């Protein structure tokens, strides 16, 4: 056994080295053969032959010097490698001789491969690669199944957290973060003007559970989150660089943050991006510890859960255990009747699934789209190569006659394909890296993990795979056709006008039809997504996003009693609204603590007074604490009255609710005209709330779903969690940014230089994922259309060239140029019709795939199909018209004289 292996290995090595020593071995062989012939001649002459005869006989007995050399080479070396080198040299030479063809081919392939590699990288990042944490497969996101009541129903209380953490055994540890942080919640005071930043409060073991190591300093310890702990903060790499000039000595330094001296204890590594994983499209600058045992104790549902399962624990076990512990978890241990409300609402799912699971459909679609692009590119290349092969058929016939085997010629053609696709791969990789670089720097797209996009080993492997696959795909048809034809036939035929090339044109027609069909499918997909996007833009969000902007306002309502605090706050808000409202160009102003499409929370379910609550009530409306004028500033319609400054701490508690919630309540109450305005509700705590107005439904969580329930409390009666000043302007909002900021700083020198955010941007952010996919599919469809048009153009112009003589004869016999034009166009349109029919039929058969991505658009949307058919016809007509026009202008005499 081993002896055989050794000798095999030795032979392999010998052959391998022989390849590199080829020339030396050839020289040695020549010397050897010369000696051989010399000896033979000597011997022959000894026998009495003349010198000439002796030499003749010696050569005869030797039998073909070149043949012997070839056999020698074959025996000693990796023949295929040598042939490959020969083929490569030959191919490079031929390709350089025809730069037009080469450039077009490499570009087409580059576009196809580039699109494929870019999309593969996105898919790889979002779906295939594990999350950027150690042993990420152990991490689970623990949350209730989706509900209508927003974040408050997707989070847990601190008491529930403790119970879950202590009560379960499947987890190494469980952590979480405060889900209600709003952007700009951190005011860093380094100079005169505080700087607004965003920080997230996490449970102290957050980084331990995720397995994140600091780049500098340390991360949190349990004591950082206890009562009385001195304030500490961990900076993200990006913020450390931007705000602190990448100060290497920052650890241990203290800064005034939100009025507290806060010590920087660590800097996170560059690859940790909180927003990219947990809150796509959001920028998080720093992480702070959450004090579980301080005031948050009584804030209700505020924490999201993230668990790390013990090795060997299956998801099913973790699920089962979570379901078993859930009934023991209490919303607040002080209220025993709040225990058990998390029943069936504690479900672990793999963190990865939570982060990117909902994108699976969209990504598959995208992958399908680039696959089609690649097919179209291959078909195009096939077509180009066929046309070229036709022109080169004599060359190959000649080579065949000179002794090249058929296999050798096919191999030569495949080498050519491989070189072309190799060039395409290089161009494609460059295009893909550009595209990925651009995507990775689109912080505003609400898709997770985009920041980690890059060309990695897997993407390189994919590139090679596609390039080779494509080369085989587009090289095989022309290769077989070339090598399949009989030598004699080819040499005899003049190529053009022969039966062979007519057959070949039929193959090419089929290819073009396929191409048009693929382009048609892509266009249908892009069209449907575009329609959906337009429908989404047309959704009545319940507010007017144009000409409104919001800025986070700092205020100080610290006071001994709640009442005093409310009065202090009301006073400040009133001043701010009065001053900002007086700025010329400002149409309306108001404040809220949460803007639509950002954060939200719920405070139980106020119910019509005097009506018995049903046992099972859905969790209540999302709560917005607002000032008078807010609804007008947002452009939300209102029936009844708005809050006034007279709705103070001492007057009757008032609320406004939205139509959807009012309709729900009207099912239970017997209100005149089912009108909630003016009616009394009872809050969960028992207090009476007067409904003063009914507001339009606002899309508060997304732009596509149904609007949920909302309730508005006056900021003079309820405590807001922050304040967003909304300004509606007659001018573009940006023009007022500086005067608004000056006014705010005038009133409160501690007002940070917060961002002036157009409301429109919130909407754009909410739509960015859909827009992203639509743009990509649209771009791919455009590319597909272009390639298909090129294919049509190539085929028709080839066919016109081939039929030059025929057309010449027909024109000499009296056919008009118009007649020829109509004929050629007829042929073009026939191709288009077949392609469109095939493409439309396939699209209709595949509606299922795209259905889930559509919004208020049926997958057989007639106007989309009509538009696509129209576009394809126009494209076909344009690409066919150029050669057709040329044909119609042929001079019969010139045409007849051509070969």
């Amino acid at each position, binding site marked *: 056994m081993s002896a055989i292996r050794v*000798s095999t290995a*030795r*032979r392999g090595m*010998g*052959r391998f080295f*022989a390849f590199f020593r080829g020339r030396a*071995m050839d020289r*040695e*062989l020549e*010397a*050897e*053969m010369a*000696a*051989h012939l*010399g*000896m*033979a001649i*000597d*011997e022959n002459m000894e026998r009495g032959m003349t010198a000439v005869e002796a030499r003749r006989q010696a050569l005869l*007995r*030797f*039998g*073909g*010097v070149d*043949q*012997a050399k070839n*056999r*020698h080479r*074959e*025996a*000693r070396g990796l023949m295929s490698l040598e042939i490959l080198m020969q083929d490569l040299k030959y191919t490079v030479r031929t390709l350089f001789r025809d730069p037009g063809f080469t450039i077009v081919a490499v570009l087409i392939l580059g576009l196809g491969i580039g699109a494929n590699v870019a999309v593969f990288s996105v898919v790889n990042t979002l779906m295939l690669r594990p999350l950027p944490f150690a042993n990420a497969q152990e991490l689970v996101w623990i949350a209730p199944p989706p509900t209508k009541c927003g974040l408050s129903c997707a989070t847990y209380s601190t008491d529930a957290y403790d119970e879950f953490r202590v009560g379960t055994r499947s987890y190494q540890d469980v952590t979480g973060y405060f889900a209600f942080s709003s952007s700009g919640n951190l005011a860093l005071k380094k100079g005169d003007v505080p700087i607004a930043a965003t920080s997230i409060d996490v449970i102290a073991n957050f980084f331990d559970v995720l397995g994140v190591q600091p780049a500098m300093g340390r991360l949190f310890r349990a004591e950082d989150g206890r009562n009385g702990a001195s304030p500490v903060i961990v900076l993200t790499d990006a913020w450390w660089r931007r705000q602190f000039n990448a100060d290497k000595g920052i650890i241990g330094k203290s800064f005034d943050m939100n009025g507290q001296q806060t010590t920087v204890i660590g800097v996170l590594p560059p690859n940790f991006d909180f927003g990219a994983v947990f809150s796509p499209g959001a920028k998080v600058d720093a992480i702070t510890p959450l004090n579980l045992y301080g005031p948050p104790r009584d804030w209700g549902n505020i924490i999201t859960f993230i668990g790390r399962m013990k090795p060997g624990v299956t998801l099913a076990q973790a699920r089962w255990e979570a379901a078993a512990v859930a009934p023991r978890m209490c919303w607040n241990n002080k209220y025993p009747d709040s225990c058990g409300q998390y029943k069936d609402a504690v479900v672990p799912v793999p963190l990865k699934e939570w982060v990117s699971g909902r994108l699976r459909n969209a990504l598959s679609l995208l992958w399908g789209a680039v696959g089609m692009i690649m097919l179209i590119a291959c078909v195009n290349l096939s077509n180009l190569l066929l046309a070229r092969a036709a022109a080169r058929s004599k060359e190959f016939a000649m080579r065949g006659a000179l002794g090249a085997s058929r296999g050798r010629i096919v191999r030569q053609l495949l080498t050519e394909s491989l070189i072309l696709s190799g060039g395409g791969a290089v161009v494609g990789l460059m295009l893909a890296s550009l595209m990925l670089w651009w995507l990775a720097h689109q912080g505003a797209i609400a898709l997770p993990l985009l920041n980690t996009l890059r060309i990695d080993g897997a993407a390189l492997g994919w590139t090679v795979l596609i390039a080779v696959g494509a080369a085989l795909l587009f090289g095989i048809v022309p290769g077989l056709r070339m090598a399949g034809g009989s030598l004699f036939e080819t040499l005899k035929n003049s190529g053009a006008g022969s039966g062979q090339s007519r057959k070949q044109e039929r193959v090419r027609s089929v290819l073009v039809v396929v191409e048009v069909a693929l382009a048609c499918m892509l266009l249908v997909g892009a069209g449907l997504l575009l329609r959906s996007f337009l429908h989404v833009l047309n959704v009545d969000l319940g507010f007017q996003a144009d000409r409104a902007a919001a800025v986070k306002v700092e205020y100080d309502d610290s006071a001994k009693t709640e009442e005093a605090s409310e009065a202090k706050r009301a006073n400040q808000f009133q001043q701010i609204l009065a001053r900002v409202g007086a700025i010329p160009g400002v149409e309306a102003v108001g404040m809220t603590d949460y803007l639509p499409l950002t954060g939200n929370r719920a405070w139980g379910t106020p119910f019509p007074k005097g009506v018995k609550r049903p046992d099972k009530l859905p969790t209540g409306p999302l709560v917005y604490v607002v000032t008078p004028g807010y609804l007008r500033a947002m452009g939300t319609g209102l029936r009844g009255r708005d809050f006034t400054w007279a709705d103070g701490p001492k007057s009757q508690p008032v609320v406004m609710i939205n139509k959807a919630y009012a309709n729900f309540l009207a099912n239970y109450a017997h209100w005149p005209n089912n009108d909630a305005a003016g009616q009394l509700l009872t809050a969960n705590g028992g207090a009476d709330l007067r409904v003063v107005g009914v507001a339009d439904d606002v899309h508060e969580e997304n732009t596509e779903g149904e609007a949920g329930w909302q309730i508005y409390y006056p900021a003079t009666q309820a405590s807001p969690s922050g304040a967003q000043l909304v300004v509606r302007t007659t001018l573009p909002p940006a023009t007022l940014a500086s005067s608004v900021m000056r006014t705010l700083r005038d009133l409160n020198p501690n007002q940070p230089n917060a961002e002036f955010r157009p409301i429109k941007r919130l909407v754009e952010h909410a739509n960015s994922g859909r827009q992203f996919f639509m743009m990509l599919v649209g771009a791919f469809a455009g590319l597909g259309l272009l390639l298909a048009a090129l294919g049509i153009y190539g085929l028709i112009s080839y066919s016109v060239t081939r039929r030059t003589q025929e057309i010449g004869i027909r024109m000499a016999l009296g056919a008009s140029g118009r007649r020829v034009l109509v004929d050629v166009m007829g042929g073009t349109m026939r191709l288009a019709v077949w392609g469109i029919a095939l493409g439309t039929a396939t699209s209709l058969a595949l509606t299922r795939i795209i259905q889930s991505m559509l919004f208020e658009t049926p997958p057989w949307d007639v106007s989309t199909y009509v538009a696509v058919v129209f576009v394809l016809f126009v494209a076909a007509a344009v690409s066919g018209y150029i050669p057709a026009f040329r044909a119609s202008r042929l001079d019969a005499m010139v045409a007849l004289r051509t070969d």
Partner: protein
Amino acid sequence: MSPEKLDLLQGTLDLMVLQTLAVMGSMHGYGIARRIEQVSADEVLLNQGTIYASLVRLEQRGWIDSSWGVSGNNRKAKFYSITEAGKRKLAVDAAYWGRLTGVMDRVLGMDTDAGKEPA
């Protein structure tokens, strides 16, 4: 060339070369070719040139060694000699060849009525 000459079967030339070297000791390519021609009494169709493919094959497998030397009539030539491994290989192949020719002889020597049961 006379049409009656035998075409060499694949691999037989290698065996002939090995045997020649085993018997004659160190030889150059021309000598080997001539020797085979003489022994076979010019019955095989041997293009002498093909011997070199065989030699390089045998050398790469480690069955023969080569070195440059000077021939009897003062020509620089490459001399080949069989190695120990080559001798073992020769023994194995010769035995195999012997068995094969024996079988071939018997099969081809069958009488036309040998298959019939004796009456």
